[in-house]
């Protein structure tokens, strides 16, 4: 078997893996990135809802159960750039109130850090990547530097829906997007054609092939695609990680490393840790307290649709939307429904295509034949939509475990159970009612809602101060194997009610700094 000696192995080339690799490599470290999926570059990003499906998870199957499944294939990515290759670039921050929910409300879990700990990294990443927004209009925004680019433009759909919010006394602001409203840091400005989900080949949207992967490579990191890690290797005393075993282009190899960072997303990270059990770690690495795999979360999507008299130009803009509303974000326990708990935000006036899971036709699955064709012709001109990102309360029963079934390399498949917390479901329902009322206030001729979708995947390797209830510390360092780290949304103890990618970057940047200091020491 081939053996390579490296300084730091980063498993995964998505949002967290790419920024870590960039900062570590540019800090002078010897870094190898192992990506399970294929190589991808800008010219692979074909503007088509069908071709975009190649960017979604294409690795070993994940068995899903529960009353609110996590939609792993849709939410995960496959190939260089990972899930961030098809993300929509909606980059709001968590709020201070998200970090201590157990202490303040007796709900969910506490983070081992607060907003103040993360703010410098939000600001740093925001400057490096570029975010378009209008901080002053975001009356709910936590403390932070102003956005480096002006807010994204408003098209007809946005103006129509903003009227609905205004009529109800609610605020809107340009949606904070990691999409260039003007040229930034050598990357081009967006032309607002709504192909974000298919990957952005002009580099206007901050996916890893446009942002941190080039930095990683120019810093000397080596990126190996079609390199699937099948085991994390530990020393005989179980105290240290000594590297990983991987299958690279069909051949088994070992990478001996001083440090290993697992950045393979919220399901594959715990799968790998569970499957790397040894005599010293009989239940898996990082699972001494049986917290590994627990608290998987996914945001319920509150989907609201409508048809308007006016033409909406609903094909223009960004896939994530034009505007945001977070008026109620900090009122986690005060909702129209007494049973509801949590935060949420509205992503307003999303660019939409005729087909696909989030396309116009799918919003009315009851229609077929001539009525469907009639609807499509009307909706193509008069459709509008917005989506609520609803906080998902963590539950220990929502977890990643290993299946009895194995992949061709002998690694058990992941199975993921996820039920919706009753308070989360109540919040989702209350939010939909609010959304419908906004559309009515905006003058919609028809209003309808969609099913409880599943956006983003978080948890499973949650961070915490207490080794008895968490898998890692605040840097993602495993409590029981000190040179093994986890990065990505799996670290989140709670989901918040915002898109996770900005926070993933901020956390990973913090971990990179910690690692640079540690490795130097």
């Amino acid at each position, binding site marked *: 078997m081939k053996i390579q000696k490296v300084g730091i192995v980063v498993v995964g080339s998505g949002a967290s893996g790419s920024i870590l690799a960039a900062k570590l490599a540019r800090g002078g470290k010897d870094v190898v990135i192992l990506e399970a*999926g*294929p190589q991808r*570059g*800008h*010219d*692979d*990003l*074909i*503007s*088509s*809802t*069908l*071709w975009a*499906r*190649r960017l*979604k998870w*294409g*690795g070993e*199957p994940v068995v*899903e159960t529960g009353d609110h*499944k996590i*939609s792993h*294939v*849709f939410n995960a990515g*496959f190939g260089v750039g990972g899930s961030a290759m098809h993300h929509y670039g909606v980059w709001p921050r968590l709020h201070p109130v998200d970090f201590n929910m157990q202490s303040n409300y007796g709900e969910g879990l506490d983070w081992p850090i607060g907003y103040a700990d993360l703010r410098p990294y939000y600001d740093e990443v925001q400057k490096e990547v570029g975010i378009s927004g209008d901080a002053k209009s975001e009356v709910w925004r936590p403390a932070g530097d102003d956005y480096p680019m002006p807010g994204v433009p408003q098209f007809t759909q946005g103006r129509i829906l903003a009227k609905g919010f205004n009529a109800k006394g609610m605020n809107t602001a340009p949606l904070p997007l990691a999409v260039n409203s003007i040229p930034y840091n*050598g*990357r*081009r400005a967006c*032309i607002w*054609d*709504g*192909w974000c989900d298919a990957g*952005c*080949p*002009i*580099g206007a949207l901050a996916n890893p*092939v*446009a942002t941190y*992967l*080039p930095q990683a490579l120019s810093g000397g990191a080596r990126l190996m695609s079609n390199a699937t890690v099948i085991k994390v290797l530990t020393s005989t005393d179980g105290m240290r990680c000594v590297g990983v075993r991987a299958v690279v282009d069909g051949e088994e190899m070992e990478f001996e490393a001083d440090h290993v960072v697992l950045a393979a997303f919220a399901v594959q990270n715990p799968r790998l840790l569970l499957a790397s059990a040894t005599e010293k770690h009989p239940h898996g690495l990082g699972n001494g307290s049986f917290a590994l795999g627990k608290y998987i979360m996914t945001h319920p999507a509150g989907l609201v649709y409508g048809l308007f008299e006016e033409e909406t130009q609903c*094909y223009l803009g960004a896939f994530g939307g034009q505007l945001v509303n977070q008026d109620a974000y900090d009122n986690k326990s005060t909702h129209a429904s007494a049973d509801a708990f949590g935060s949420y935000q509205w992503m307003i006036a999303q660019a939409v*295509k*005729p*087909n*696909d*899971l989030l*396309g116009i*036709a*799918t919003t009315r*699955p*009851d229609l*077929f*034949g*001539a009525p*469907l*064709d009639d609807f*499509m*012709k009307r909706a*193509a*001109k008069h459709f509008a939509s917005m989506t609520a990102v609803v906080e998902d309360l963590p539950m220990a029963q929502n977890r990643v475990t290993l299946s009895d079934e194995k992949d061709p390399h002998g690694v058990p498949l992941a199975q993921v159970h996820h039920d919706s917390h009753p308070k989360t479901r109540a919040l989702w329902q209350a939010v939909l009612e609010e959304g419908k009322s906004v559309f009515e206030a905006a003058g919609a001729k028809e209003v309808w809602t969609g099913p409880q979708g599943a956006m983003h995947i978080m948890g499973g390797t949650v961070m915490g101060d207490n080794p008895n209830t968490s898998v890692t510390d605040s840097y993602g360092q495993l409590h029981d194997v000190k040179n093994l780290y986890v990065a990505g949304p799996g670290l989140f103890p709670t989901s918040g009610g915002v898109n996770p990618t900005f926070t993933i970057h901020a956390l990973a940047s913090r971990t990179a700094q910690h690692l640079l200091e540690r490795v130097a020491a």
Partner: protein
Amino acid sequence: MSVSRRQFLKGSGVGLLTFYVSGCQVSLTPEQAKQQQADFLTLTGPQVSTLEALGNVLVPGAASKGLAHFLDQQLSARGQDQLLMIRYLGVPQPFDGFYTAGLAAVESVSRAAHGKNFAELKSDQKTDLVMQMAQTNPEGWQGPPAPFFYFVVRSDAVDVVYGTTMGFDELDVPYMPHIEPPTGWRL
């Protein structure tokens, strides 16, 4: 790693998909494949007949847009390269069994209720059966849940009718591609 718009358009021929006409590989749109009677690799003649009839009920014009050739070509593609929406819907690969079981169930229910293949039913009979499928398993249905099968095939039909550059044009929606889908197969 950024490239210009002109370079994107130059790359628009990347990844052409192939059909077989008289044993020869050719790059075609599904609609062209239908017109040229390209060979089917996975679906049988009766399955094609049922699928095209069902597709036309779900989305008018789906058969002539090449629904059956699209599905057949995709069912023979490698797992991670498949472009079918069923990928998102929790059905384990390979998907052949899902589709063939669903099509068999449509035929079985059609013959039990009317003594005819689905494609031979009158228009209102087809519509009634599809209406039932959309809501529940019709009596005697043996296959994947009928409403789910309805949803999946409807999505495929929507893809070939509305999800193409031509489909956008027909809805008067600007396609505005950065990189156009492969020229031989504009989906």
